[in-house]
């Protein structure tokens, strides 16, 4: 029986059906649900790795050890995993290995919109691109076969719209495969220059063979319509083309690296006008043009953002004029914000108040950059806060460093903050680093990590001692504070910023979505005492709002009584409901 599945669940199902027994990942939107779904199956191993590089390395080891292995991450995670990935492309596999890259055109939840099909060409990997959940399942199964047949890791490239759309899926049976034999083979797996030179020859041979495979594989197919226009497309964009241009001929590429040169040439010869529609980079277009084929692409469609059916219709179809009510222009924007009771809110309120330069990092707390908190100066990528604070200090001196903090979450610190902290100590920086420990990987939906003491299957394991780790790298000044205690937080910051030595302040309080504050406490605003100064609004919390007509603040039903705004009100107007 068919059922609805998001693309990510279908990928997990495909890996399970293909007989995969190992899956690794670091959570990252839009890829998170792949391995969390895989972990629900019996008789398989799944892990949240500390970061994508480790995920890739564990995956490589499992593959060399003979298991079919799934490795999943978001697009920028592939950057972290790139070092092992490029060389694993040389060694090839034993058990099949599929690496999923969750790309995010439109940056729904990301810091850039890089097109990871580029990795396919750069690292010499076959790349498959499914267009719905059924294909996500089927292509994942095929990818494992391809991986073993051509002795290569295979990249399955999906986008947010594929990963998080539910479409109908027919499940199949799992193929239980015996673990492949493992034999020591240093020439294949030890990448010394002498061995790697030999392996590079194999890589190039493999790419030629895969090019031949691409010509005939059912992954690439032509749907003939009118020959006036021929469209080459891949992934979810195929669905938009079918939606708005039902009459055209379509060459749908399920495999976008290597490309089927002859198939594309033959398609091009048979249509009057050839157009390539691909989100983000002209990966297909540039190759097709290099073969001397006349084609339109990026002169019609943007390099930026996510595509939509109406975008394609506007360029190539019969777009009906859409009436605009114009109301969307009248209303305020609604960017994401921290939840009521979020332990990060008090931190950014304090940093902003103290006028510090804040080198930020990736997580819910990146939202501390938005007004009214305005508590961040820079944020580049996972783990960048500590290194960039160190760089600021080396550029601008210790006085500037005494007004600079690095802010990083617990999961992000484990992911890639540790080595930068080692650098601070080793190269005699004086940075003050705040580790905002909320005991989870919150932004991606509360995944466990080494610091939570729980595995992906919610089984107890060793709990990484973050404080002990910080001490071990050589930081002498370590402070633990409650981020909801603003007086203590500010005093601690002042002390540590003034110290001409590295300091780490660990703020400890679990994510409010996990650790609900008991509903027994409630706050109200005393109308007599409230002077309408709006100071309480400076924390940017949806739990308190202001009524302009009355010039008074009022608590909102979403308040969880964290006790932050009462500490900010200078008139003591926010009071606990007694009893």
């Amino acid at each position: 029986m068919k059922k609805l599945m998001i693309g990510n669940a279908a990928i997990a199902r495909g890996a399970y059906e293909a007989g995969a027994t190992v899956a690794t990942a670091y959570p990252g939107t839009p890829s998170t649900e792949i391995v969390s779904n895989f972990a629900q199956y019996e008789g398989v191993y799944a892990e949240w790795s500390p970061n994508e590089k480790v995920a890739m390395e564990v995956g490589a080891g499992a593959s060399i050890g003979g298991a079919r292995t799934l490795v999943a991450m978001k697009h920028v995670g592939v950057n972290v995993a790139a070092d092992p990935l490029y060389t694993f492309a040389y060694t090839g596999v034993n058990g099949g290995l599929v690496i999923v890259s969750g790309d995010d055109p439109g940056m729904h939840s990301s810091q850039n919109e890089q097109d990871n099909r580029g990795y396919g060409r750069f690292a010499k990997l076959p790349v498959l691109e499914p267009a719905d959940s059924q294909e996500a399942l089927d292509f994942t199964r095929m990818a494992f076969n391809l991986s073993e047949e051509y002795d290569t890791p295979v990249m399955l490239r999906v986008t947010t719209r594929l990963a998080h759309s539910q479409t109908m899926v027919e499940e199949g049976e799992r193929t239980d495969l015996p673990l492949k034999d493992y034999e020591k083979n240093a020439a294949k797996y030890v990448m010394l220059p002498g061995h790697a030179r030999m392996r590079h020859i194999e890589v190039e041979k493999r790419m030629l063979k895969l090019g031949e495979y691409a010509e005939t594989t059912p992954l690439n197919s032509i749907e003939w319509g009118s020959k006036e226009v021929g469209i080459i497309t891949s992934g979810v964009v195929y669905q938009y083309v079918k939606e708005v241009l039902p009459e055209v001929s379509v060459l749908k590429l399920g495999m976008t690296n290597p490309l089927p040169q002859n198939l594309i040439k033959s398609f091009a010869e048979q249509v009057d006008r050839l157009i390539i529609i691909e989100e983000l980079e002209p990966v297909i277009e540039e190759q097709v043009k290099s073969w001397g084929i006349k084609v339109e692409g990026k002169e019609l469609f943007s390099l930026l953002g996510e595509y939509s059916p109406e975008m394609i219709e506007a360029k190539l179809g019969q777009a009906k004029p859409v009436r605009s009510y114009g109301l969307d222009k009248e209303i305020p924007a609604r960017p994401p914000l921290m939840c009521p009771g979020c332990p990060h809110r008090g931190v950014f309120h304090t940093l902003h108040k103290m006028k510090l330069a804040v080198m930020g990092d990736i997580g819910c707390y990146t939202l501390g950059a938005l007004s009214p908190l305005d508590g961040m100066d820079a944020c580049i990528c996972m783990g960048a806060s500590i290194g960039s604070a160190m760089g600021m200090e080396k550029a601008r001196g210790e006085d500037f460093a005494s007004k600079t903090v690095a802010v990083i979450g617990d999961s992000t610190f484990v992911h890639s903050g540790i080595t930068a902290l080692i650098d601070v100590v080793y190269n005699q920086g004086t940075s003050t680093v705040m580790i905002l420990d909320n005991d989870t990987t919150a932004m991606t939906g509360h995944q466990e990590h080494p610091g939570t003491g729980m595995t992906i299957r919610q089984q107890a394991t060793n709990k990484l001692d973050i404080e002990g780790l910080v001490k071990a790298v050589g930081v002498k000044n370590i402070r633990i504070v409650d981020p909801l205690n603003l007086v203590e937080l500010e005093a601690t910051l002042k002390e540590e910023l003034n110290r001409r030595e590295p300091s780490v302040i660990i703020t400890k309080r679990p994510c409010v979505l996990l650790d609900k504050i008991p509903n027994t406490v409630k706050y109200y605003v005393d109308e007599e005492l409230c002077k309408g100064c709006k100071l309480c609004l400076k924390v940017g919390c949806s739990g308190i709002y202001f009524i302009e007509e009355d010039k008074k603040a009022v608590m909102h039903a979403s308040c969880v009584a964290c006790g932050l705004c009462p500490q900010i009100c200078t008139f003591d107007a926010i009071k606990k409901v007694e009893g």
Partner: protein
Amino acid sequence: MQSQTTDILIVGVGGQGTLLTSRIIAQVAVQLGYDVKVSEVHGMAQRGGSVVTQVRYGKKIYSPIIKKGEADVILAFEKIEAARWLDYLKADGMVIINNERVNPLPVMSGKAKYPEDIHEKVAALVEKTVVVDATDIAARCGNVKAANVVLVGILSQAIGLPVEEVEKAIRAIVPGKALEVNQEAFREGRKLLEQTV
């Protein structure tokens, strides 16, 4: 089975439970034998941002996202979100607005005003506008969190989904302990539109 496609846009604020509503509606469409696609929002926007979930069903569905000017129904969990997405509504489409105000950041920080009368503006522009107090109804049923299922009741009535199929889908999707409150919330929502239209 109807031959044309039904397009439903469910909009709201991250954390309001739009996903559950879309999953119930989609499940009903599956039960009725339609091809179904649902586009969801995960990740950063779920933290209090403007979110949109799209449900499409019919004989054959290609795109998981709805074109502007094509939605049969916009179901808004929050007032200004109805206005934000209104251009997606088709000419004779219906807007269902939950009379709930959630201040966005620019309002909290005093940089913008919340347009209190926005649902009246929508009603003046769109003939088929229904404004409901789903949160109050859910509270009367025993849990404010069931507001999304009150809205399922209204929506399913608006697009003519059979009551027994929706109840079946709710039983399949809503966790056991919350089921009773949710079933009550669904029935109350269903009644509401019968009275309004």
